[in-house]
């Protein structure tokens, strides 16, 4: 064991090589010039382009309404509200049919898009001020 340790110490002494220390530094390779820029671009968390726009909210609200409706429909179908004494949840899925829901969802979506378009047109060409929606949401 001691013999081995002595051998390792000897190796440690031998490893000090000024010639190699001086010359191997020449083999250091530098990456391309745009390396740092590329890394920064990958690291920086870019906000989703849509997250600041009003279209994002319209696109997010539509599936949300549909999802809530589907959940209520499933709960009603499985009669879970009764089993867990959740009768106070109104039977929306029966009152509001899927076709009626789709109609309102489309109305909201198109209405929203219309007002966004109008707001964009007014702010850009007429009032030349900050858009109302971006003022409201950003």
């Amino acid at each position: 064991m001691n013999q081995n340790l002595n051998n390792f110490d000897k190796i440690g002494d031998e490893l000090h090589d000024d010639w190699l220390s001086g010359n191997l530094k020449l083999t250091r390779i530098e990456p391309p010039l745009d390396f740092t820029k590329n890394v920064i671009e990958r690291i920086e968390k870019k906000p989703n382009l849509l997250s600041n726009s009003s279209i994002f909210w319209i696109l997010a609200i539509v599936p949300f309404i549909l999802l809530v409706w589907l959940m209520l429909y499933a709960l009603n179908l499985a009669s879970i509200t009764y089993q867990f004494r959740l009768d106070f949840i109104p039977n929306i899925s029966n009152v509001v049919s899927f076709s009626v829901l789709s109609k309102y969802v489309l109305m909201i979506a198109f209405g929203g898009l219309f007002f966004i378009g109008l707001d964009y047109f007014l702010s850009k060409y007429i009032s030349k001020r900050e858009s109302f929606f971006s003022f409201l949401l950003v």
Partner: protein
Amino acid sequence: MFRTEFNKLSDEELIGLVVKNHSRATASLVDRYKGMVFTLSYRILKNQLDAEEAAQDTFVKAFNALDSFRFDCKFSTWLYRICYNNAISRSRVYKPMQVEVETKFDIPSETTSALENLSTNDRSKYLGKAMEMLEPEESVLLTLYYVDNNNINEIAAIMNLTESNIKVKLHRGRKKLYTQLEVLLKEEVTMLF
């Protein structure tokens, strides 16, 4: 604060700023270590494009996990460990070409003196070629020890090996490098005459 002023800051101070999403501090930290991270990746992957991708991945992984860095070792040791593991896992997918090098167990003094007579560019070329002939692990060890002056403890932490193992591998790698240099210089002399 100008970029030159960031260069004067310590790793700890820069990390503090990077955590607060300071992009100039991030750039400064990347600039400080990009050379070594790229060199280490290149030593393992032996391909410029793969090395660049691996080096970028290393920084992305390191900065994403910066919150978990507890300053229990040097930042460079932590970063090189990520770099080494990342490049090794990449090399398993794309296996770099290996060249068998027969090791002589005496270090030829003629080799070093012959190299001393060459210009810096030529010396760098031959040393680079000789390093490429070594096994990735050996060239990484030599780079960490002789180029970046890491000590045996740090290299052991980076490569997840024991200190005695590092010493033996370094010893062997250095001898292989000299052998390879001798072969390369002899080939060059034969071509000239």
